[in-house]
């Protein structure tokens, strides 16, 4: 009797460190930030809890442009990542042969370099008089005052580039698990290659796509490094605003309120997406 109880409780004991970790470093800070988000005051006179929910309204009114822009940038970057990653992952999974590991390693290779340095190097390459634009300008392909840096294109491009592996890897894992026998069976039944792709490969890749979209969209929307380094006027993302409010203005309540608005927006988006995609696997992944 005693032994059976112990066996039944064992998983919980084993999961305990994980739970403690989550509570200590996620749940408690989140609740503290939630509390701060409705406080009023300033750093000199101290902040007091006044349940000032107006912080949320003010935050949204002042920075709705940056919120919407961040979500749009995140969405576009995610779609671009998906468009680039799917064929790459497909090719590696089905045609990579014994070089699969090396090919995956090649995808990851640039990411051994620091995030900031990688992004900064785009600055160098895409500079108005840099190695890409100078020849294009001298051949007359683009006007003299054409520039990429300090535009939406640069920021979205940077986001796409920086989050690409988070899309490639989950899709690759999903595709890799597909049993080749299924494709052979499809061919045996006179299914065309397109039909096989549509009826077998795509549905079976959905869990990977789902995970990839989440891993790309959520951090891309909240990113502030790409906008700082590659952006210009009218490319500020909400992450930049939160950083300024928190570290420069020391306005902790506004920063906290903005963070929760962002979190709520992303959660609603993610769950709406999970519902739309509607697979059991997808929901499991969202829960897990």
């Amino acid at each position: 009797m005693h032994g059976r109880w112990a066996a039944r409780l064992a998983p919980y004991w084993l999961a305990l460190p994980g739970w403690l970790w989550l509570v200590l470093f996620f749940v408690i800070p989140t609740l503290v930030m939630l509390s701060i988000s409705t406080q009023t005051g300033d750093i000199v006179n101290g902040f007091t809890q006044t349940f000032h929910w107006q912080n949320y309204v003010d935050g949204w009114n002042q920075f709705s442009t940056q919120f919407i822009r961040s979500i749009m940038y995140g969405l576009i970057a995610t779609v671009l990542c998906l468009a680039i990653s799917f064929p790459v992952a497909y090719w590696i999974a089905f045609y990579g042969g014994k070089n699969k590991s090396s090919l995956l390693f090649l995808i990851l290779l640039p990411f051994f370099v620091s995030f900031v340095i990688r992004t900064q190097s785009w600055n160098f390459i895409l500079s108005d008089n840099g190695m890409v634009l100078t020849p294009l300008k001298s051949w007359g392909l683009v006007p003299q005052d054409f520039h990429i840096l300090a535009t939406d294109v640069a920021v979205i491009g940077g986001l796409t580039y920086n989050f690409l592996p988070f899309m490639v890897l989950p899709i690759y894992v999903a595709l890799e698990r597909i049993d080749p026998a299924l494709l052979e069976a499809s061919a045996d039944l006179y299914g065309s290659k397109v039909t096989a792709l549509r009826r077998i490969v795509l549905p079976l890749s959905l869990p990977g796509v789902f995970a990839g979209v989440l891993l790309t969209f959520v951090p891309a929307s909240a990113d502030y490094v790409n906008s700082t380094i590659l952006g210009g006027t009218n490319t500020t993302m909400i992450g930049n605003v939160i950083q300024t409010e928190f570290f420069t203005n020391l306005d902790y309540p506004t920063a906290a309120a903005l963070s929760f608005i962002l979190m709520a927006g992303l959660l609603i988006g993610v769950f709406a997406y999970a519902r739309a995609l509607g697979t059991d696997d997808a929901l499991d992944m969202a829960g897990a």
Partner: protein
Amino acid sequence: MSHNPVPDPVAALPADVLRGLTSPRLSRRDALRLGGVSGLALALAACGVSGGAQAGPTGSAAVDAAAAFWAKQTPTKLMNFANWPLYIDVSATNKSNHPSIDLFTKQTGIKVTYSEVIQANDSFFGQIQPQLAADQSIGYDLMVITNGIYLDKLRQLNYLQALDQSKMTNFNQNASPLVKSPSYDRGNQFTMAWQSGMTGIGYNPKLTGRPITSWQDLQDPAFKGKIGMFADNQDLPNSAICAIGVNPESSTQADWQNAANWLLKQRDAGLVRKYYAQDYIAPLSAGDLWISMAWSGDIFQANASGASLEFVIPKEGAPIWTDNMCIPKTAVNPVAAMTYMDFVYQPQIAAMLAESINYVTPVPAAVTYITADAANATGADKASLQALVTSPLIFPPASETALLHHYRVLTTAEEPVWNKLFEPIYQA
């Protein structure tokens, strides 16, 4: 993982959190448990961010308190100095060796631990604030903070030790009028300048095609998309206030509104390429920018490494900022720190520092020593020292210092007004 049907994906979140602990359906007990969580939230809500100023003495009581503090201090033989990177002299043979500090140790017997730990005022403030609030030592006896928001905060929170006015002989004798009794610290109660710099306009004369003289040049449509501005709530607003012809130090809220409009006009006409945090020098050197707000020392250093940029203090006037030595109230070796602060105001020491730092020295008399060093030096050293002596960026002539204004000092009530006006401009 087994999957339980959930009616609504959003509602699945708390159920998922509780999965494994309870049945997936939300029973009454779970509702109570969730109630407990919000009870915890309420408990947390009760504890705000601690902080808030402890009331300090004011007026003559402050002077008495400072005198009483210094009277009971005993000199120590150690000092911890927190400074910014590349902001002190280095010996030619060993980069971690600082001749001026060695000289100080030789003369006073005080050993200095020199740390280049300050990367930015905001992050450094964030790092030391909890200890100062708890009345604990921050590990440094002397630190260098730029005038502006964070220096004001340190003072408003009573985190700084008032200086020993009887130990400022060299300062009183040699300090430039620019750093004596500045608007942000009348009577130098808490600070003595380390170095200063100007915020003006840096430009590439080949690309602009004409000399730049005025802030209004930043509104020139000919430079559309090639103009850099600063992304901060000190230099950007204070420069804009200068641009509309007002001295920032005595500016009113109506002036701020006019300055904000001036900036908005520039931004909405598409003239500004980007609002830069501090990375404007590379694009300015590369030609991505033709003209930009700039710090004097940056332009001097960029030219020293091969660029051919010009720096101008616009005719309407420009902000001067000062990095200030100050003593945290929890300093362990305040007497040593005080001794050092006055030590660097000897002209020969100030010259040693100025020769390496390339910003505006607070001791104009240092020029005689640098001139003498230039006369004795040879080759490249000689040329660079001579450039230093004649540079208006290091020793601004009187005609230019008259144009320099300190930042507006903001009260805690004015700060949100200021931020709401200017932040949306550069955080667009």
